[in-house]
């Protein structure tokens, strides 16, 4: 019954705001004309008016200013001492949008694969792509969430589904009462995007690079769809293009008239999203991660607007030394620096709004804003981040964001400047209607009161005729004491509600036995009421305030020293990060070393090498020392070219395999280079200077690959090896036919080596026909092109087409002879050469054929017996291939082994007597040739890049230790500097731990130990669904 009543009331109430909904019962017509006077009004981040007046009429601001006339029909509210701010706007939420459940994970131990979804409606083939979702159709006000948002000062939010990759269009809604129809202020404001596939049960994409490829292809498809529809209208005499509501919904975004809000998980992913925006000319706003301070310069260069969370982390648990051991310097620095993120963004002149999204249960949004202000953010920017900037993001600047005439009457009334710690929000106003947050004390009870007691019945006088009541403390929670006859008693249970006051006191020492209770009313400086003593006698009391309350300056607060982050940000901002790249040494000479040139000069003993401006100038004996040269004494040392790893999986973010489909040539490792991976530094410690970052081997045609130079401290784009030919991963055999994936994985084509051949052939053929189609279309006149549906741009086939035209080169994971021959013959049939067979443990069986075809071979030195297809492997493989004049290298497929590729190369001497210098080429010149970068690296020859390593002994020996690693004439690793850096890591960590221990709340940090992140060590076979969860 109660529920029904409530429903009826809501309906009645709602009818007042509705324009098309028929009213049930009487019509609501309460006027809304209010004048708020005497307040400090912060009109905008720039304008502040003291003792000003705000006039509201029918939900809008009619006027604002000092000394303005108050309309006769207005209700006047004296708000002396309060502060009025424009209502805050939350630009990123899914308020009122139904939440989707997390989808299932694909994995070895997960359930069966889900390659497809049930198709309903003319939607996208991938369940994570639903740009057609409209918040305006889904929005349902949520009373609880609304109250919470208002409690933090929000009056308006932008809301959209936060599920999936293309998430749908947002709406901007206010947090007042009413029907959705009334609350929605703006629709189709932005397409929301992310890299996370959320509730989609479909396996693809299972990696970050897969998400990126899916976004890219979807945008191309949307472009095609637009064009196809137009052409079809002009000329219906052609095959009708498909109907697709999802692609149609992207019209605004791709044509640049609409905007997107792209949510990212870290600073590198922000840059990744920005690359997509740049590629497609999208107008993107980034929902950032709180890590932006780590890479400020490139983020500043985007000139974009960010939505910044205030998700400052809890201090990590460092309660015990072993707990501390699991907390990284990066974790500690982030804890120490995160609150400075907004301030640093301001200094970098980045435009941003705040969001409460990402705060933990129990976090107070405003407290986080205040923390950011203490840590360097200006109050003006803070306010802009809460009002004007989000108003612009939401497309409502004309009606919200400031307190100007004509705008919506959305504002906050607070007890104080909102950024001061003691400020309390009293009310939040939305469209002229007030919502109470914290009750504003109606009267000021504080001060010194002289209280006189009189008997109710004249016959019984009170034992004490007079006392003094002193009320102090906070206005919302005052404290009191009673002074009489040199005795002081603290009063208990003092409360002031509206104008009513009540309190009690232990009166024994004041001649009032027992607990005396008082209640009464305050009228300005007078008060009166009734009292009851412990013995049950009643009396009246009256009082006059003799002294107003004087607020004492809060000395304790002022002394609170703000401690800024202890250590400067380095790149990457963790252990062994650098402030800047190592200096380019203009001229250096290494004297008296054994130099393994891996070039025509062979091995030179007691030799010198001159390096100038990042290039090798000269190698030889008794070279003259150039002027101003930096000298390195190479006595007893060996110098080799930098080690090059043909097969590496380091420095890749969120997934090395896009294993959900058999052909994924659309994905690019280059999109997901993780420049912060500590393994980069560790490769340097083993003399590695270039790594070819490979897609895994989960499918016959994997992703596009990326060769990088290990320029530790740089950004992903800066690490990429300029000029290198593009490459792509293919894979054959057990992995791609899912032989060892478990019984659940028996439905993906192919499951045999026969099918592997067929699917690759099919793809080659498709790419060939695709190229033809495009050539045909491109040959049409402009007019004919306009009326002809163009071929669909397919980034999967684009990559294969490059392969067929020898503009991209295959690195093919392969083991057994049959499959090697298969790919050779297939490539020959389509008129190109396979680049390099990688792993290739049975390469020795067809070394002649490989040699004749002209492919390279990059083998494991001695791996075998880990699966059936490597049961015929032999460590003599390298030697046999080499002897058949195949360009042969050894690779790692393992971040640890990569650091010892020099030793691995030594095994070619042991197994098959490859001459030592030729063996060293297995890890230097030969991989460089395989990647077509031997013009620049791989040997120590004049004109080549100064990428070299100093070793303590013959580099092929197990006894050799890497002493220095140079790239481009810069010293990226030095065993002596490493020792110093270790000390620095320890020093910084100790200081930060001390800072955690000195914290007032929770010294020692979080109650929970830092979860173990584990070593990140991918290999070829790492298949996992990365795009779930956070």
């Amino acid at each position, binding site marked *: 019954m109660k529920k029904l009543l409530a429903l009826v009331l809501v309906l009645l109430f709602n009818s007042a705001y509705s324009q098309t909904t028929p009213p049930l019962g009487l019509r609501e017509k309460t006027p809304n004309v209010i004048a708020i006077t005497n307040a400090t009004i912060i009109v905008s981040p720039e304008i502040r008016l003291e003792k000003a007046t705000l006039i509201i009429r029918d939900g809008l601001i009619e006027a604002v200013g000092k000394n303005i006339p108050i309309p006769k029909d207005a209700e006047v509210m004296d708000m002396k001492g309060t502060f009025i701010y424009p209502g805050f706007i939350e630009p990123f939420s899914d308020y009122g949008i139904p939440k989707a459940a997390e989808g299932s994970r694909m994995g070895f131990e997960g359930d069966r694969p889900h390659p497809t979804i049930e198709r309903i409606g003319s939607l996208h083939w991938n369940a994570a792509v639903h740009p057609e979702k409209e918040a305006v159709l889904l929005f349902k006000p949520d009373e609880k969430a609304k109250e919470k948002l208002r409690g933090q000062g929000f009056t308006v939010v932008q809301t959209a589904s936060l599920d999936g990759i293309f998430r749908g269009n947002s709406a901007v809604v206010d947090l007042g009462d009413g029907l959705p129809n009334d609350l929605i202020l703006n629709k189709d404001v932005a397409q929301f995007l992310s890299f996370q596939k959320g509730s989609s049960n479909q396996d693809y994409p299972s990696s970050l690079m897969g998400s990126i490829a899916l976004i890219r292809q979807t945008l191309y498809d949307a472009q095609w769809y637009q064009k196809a529809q137009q052409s079809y209208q002009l000329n219906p005499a052609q095959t009708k293009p498909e109907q697709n509501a999802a692609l149609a919904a992207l019209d605004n975004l791709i044509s640049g008239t609409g905007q997107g809000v792209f949510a990212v998980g870290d600073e590198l992913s922000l840059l990744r999203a920005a690359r997509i925006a740049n590629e497609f000319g999208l107008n993107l706003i980034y929902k950032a991660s709180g890590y932006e301070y780590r890479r400020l310069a490139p983020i500043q260069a985007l000139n974009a607007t960010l939505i910044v969370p205030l998700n400052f982390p809890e201090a990590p648990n460092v309660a015990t030394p072993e707990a501390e051991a699991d907390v990284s310097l990066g974790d500690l620095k982030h804890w120490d620096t995160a609150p400075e993120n907004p301030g640093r963004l301001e200094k970098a002149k980045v435009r941003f709004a705040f969001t409460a999204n990402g705060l933990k249960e129990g976090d107070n949004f405003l407290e986080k804003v205040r923390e950011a202000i203490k840590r360097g953010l200006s109050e003006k920017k803070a306010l802009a981040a809460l009002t004007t900037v989000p108003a612009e993001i939401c497309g409502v600047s004309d009606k919200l964001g400031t307190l100007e005439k004509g705008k919506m009457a959305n504002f906050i009334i607070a007890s104080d400047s909102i950024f001061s710690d003691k400020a309390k929000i009293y009310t939040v106003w939305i469209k002229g209607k007030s919502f109470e947050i914290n009750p504003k004390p109606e009267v000021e009870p504080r001060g010194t009161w002289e209280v006189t007691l009189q008997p109710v019945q004249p016959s019984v006088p009170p034992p004490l005729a007079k006392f003094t009541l002193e009320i102090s403390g906070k206005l919302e929670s005052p404290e009191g004491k009673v002074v009489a006859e040199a005795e002081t008693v603290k009063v208990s249970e003092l409360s002031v509600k509206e104008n009513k006051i009540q309190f009690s006191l232990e009166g024994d020492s004041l001649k009032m036995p027992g607990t005396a209770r008082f209640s009464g009313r305050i009228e300005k400086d007078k008060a009166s009421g009734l009292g009851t003593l412990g013995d049950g006698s009643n009396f009246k009391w009256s009082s006059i305030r003799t002294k107003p309350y004087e607020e004492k300056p809060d000395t304790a607060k002022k002394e609170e020293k703000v401690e800024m982050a202890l250590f400067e940000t380095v790149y990457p901002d963790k*252990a062994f990060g650098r402030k800047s790249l190592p200096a380019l040494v203009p001229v250096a000479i290494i004297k008296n070393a054994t130099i393994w040139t891996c070039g025509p000069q062979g091995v030179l003993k007691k030799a010198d090498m001159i390096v100038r401006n990042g290039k090798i100038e000269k190698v030889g004996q008794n070279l003259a020392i150039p002027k101003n040269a930096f000298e390195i004494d190479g006595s007893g040392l060996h110098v080799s070219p930098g080690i090059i790893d043909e097969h590496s999986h380091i420095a890749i973010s969120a997934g090395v395999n896009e294993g959900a489909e058999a052909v994924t040539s659309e994905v690019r490792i280059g999109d997901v280079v993780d420049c912060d991976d500590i393994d980069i530094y560790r490769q340097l410690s083993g003399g590695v200077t270039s790594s070819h970052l490979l897609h895994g081997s989960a499918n016959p045609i994997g992703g596009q690959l990326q060769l990088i130079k290990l320029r530790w401290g740089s950004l992903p784009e800066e690490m990429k090896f300029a000029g290198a030919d593009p490459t792509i991963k293919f894979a054959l055999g057990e992995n791609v036919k899912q032989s060892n994936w478990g019984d659940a994985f028996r439905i993906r084509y192919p499951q045999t080596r026969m099918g592997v051949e067929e699917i690759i052939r099919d793809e080659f053929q498709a790419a060939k026909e695709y190229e033809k189609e495009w050539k045909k279309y491109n040959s049409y006149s402009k007019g004919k092109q306009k009326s002809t549906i163009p071929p669909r741009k397919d980034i999967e086939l684009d990559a294969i087409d490059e392969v067929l035209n020898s503009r991209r080169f295959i690195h093919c994971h392969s083991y057994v002879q049959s499959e090697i021959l298969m790919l050779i013959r297939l490539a020959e049939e389509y008129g190109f050469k396979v680049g390099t067979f990688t792993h290739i443990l049975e390469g020795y069986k067809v070394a002649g054929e490989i040699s004749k075809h002209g492919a390279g071979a990059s083998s494991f030195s001695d*791996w075998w017996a880990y699966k059936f297809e490597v049961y015929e492997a032999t460590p003599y493989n390298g030697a*046999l291939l080499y002897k058949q004049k195949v360009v042969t290298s050894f690779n790692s497929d393992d971040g640890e082994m990569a650091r010892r590729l020099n*030793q691995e190369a*030594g095994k070619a001497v*042991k197994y098959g007597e490859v001459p030592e210098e030729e063996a060293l080429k297995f890890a230097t010149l030969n991989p460089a040739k395989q990647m077509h970068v031997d013009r620049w690296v791989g040997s120590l020859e004049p004109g080549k890049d100064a990428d070299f390593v100093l070793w303590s002994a013959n580099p092929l*020996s197990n006894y050799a230790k890497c002493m220095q690693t140079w790239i481009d004439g810069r010293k990226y690793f030095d065993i002596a500097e490493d020792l110093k850096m270790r000390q620095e890591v320890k020093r910084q960590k100790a200081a930060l731990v001390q800072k955690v221990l000195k914290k007032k709340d929770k010294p020692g940090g979080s109650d929970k*130990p830092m979860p173990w992140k584990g070593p990140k060590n991918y290999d070829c076979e790492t298949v996992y669904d990365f795009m779930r969860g956070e």
Partner: protein
Amino acid sequence: MFDKRFSIAIFGFILSIVAVSSLFAHDIVPGKKQTKAIALTGGTIYTVSDPVIPNGTIVFDKGKIVAVGGSEVRIPAGAEVIDVSGKNVYPGLIITNSTLGLVEIEQARATVDVSEVGDINPDARADVAYNPDSDVPPTIRSNGVTTAQIVPQGGLLSGTSAIINLDGWTVEDAGLVRQAGIHLNWPWMKVIKAWWMPTPEEEQQKNIGKNLKAIEKAFEDSKQYWLAKKGNQTGDFKIDARWEAMVPLWEGKVPLYVDAGEYKQIEAAVALAKKYNLRMILVGGDDAWMLTDLLKANNIPVILKRVHSMADREEDDFDTYLKLPKVLLVAGVKFCLSNTGFFGHWDARNLPFLAGTSVAYGMDKANALRSITLWPAEIIGISDRMGSLEVGKDATIVVSSGDIMDALTNDIVYEFIQGKKVDLDDKHKRLYRKYMEKYKN
């Protein structure tokens, strides 16, 4: 340096045999029992227990070493004399914590006998499943490793290990110690938050507790069993296969091997061993560098699974494990090197090279050699027979033409296991020869 003459000389000779014999069998004939004394002369003898003897002589008979020394050593009449001048003579290398002979191909289920169902399997015995005809051990022998401790893996109490020589017709020829120890695989004790961990944190926490309780219960129950059996007077005592397997442990006849790497795991494992007064050997010991005092005080030796490993924590020194042998040496913690874990059973052949790398990162060569010979022998309890070249020990001897610990020079030319001359051919060499034939023209 690789002895080219040697390898080239044998090619032509063996090729003809291979062509025929490959039709019948692919296995190598195990070494014949030693029938007369053999003397290796002129080599540099790395006794390991005593100083290196340049130009030394070592004599062995009936499978035992009878003399080691310099020119003073008398060669018995009728002895077979093998000139090993310019070469190095070592005791056979020992690989611990291995699955050799239990696995043929890791990802071919039918060929894998490593982990039993369930968590408590102390009675699962490695020697029962050992396959002496596996193609893998000959490739391990080829680099100087003669002896392996083979160990069931997985679960909590994984099983009982055995120590075998890598040559023999059956496990009964090859077995050196059939029941060498009980193996406890200490459960992970930290909550993991990583891309590969789908289990929620609370559930992980619960599982950790469950595992620890299961260990506690197994030790309580098996101890109760042992005490009850010892004190049983009626003669109708019922045998529990699991706890029966643990009786040698309670009797102090075999040690408890605990596979544990992380700080908390090691701490907890040592506490367990102390509580029950068991002789413990730590396997893994990634964080041993933080706990050297605890290990030393409790006399717990460490089998380092694989020093060729990446440091676990982001800011750990890049060479945390490469230098771990040196760290333990300095701290006085007994240890030996193994080469198991991430890579497979087949990787045991690289054991000597891990010792080589440890030299690059601080160890001295003599102790590096000990860490793959005498120290593993002492740790797994066979130092009365193996680990050094001393009179009375098994004649398990390896001759390399170069430094055995460097892949560049490791070149095993002779190998004897208990005096039996081992055929050093293996599948890999055979394939090499076969395909050299293909490319002759």
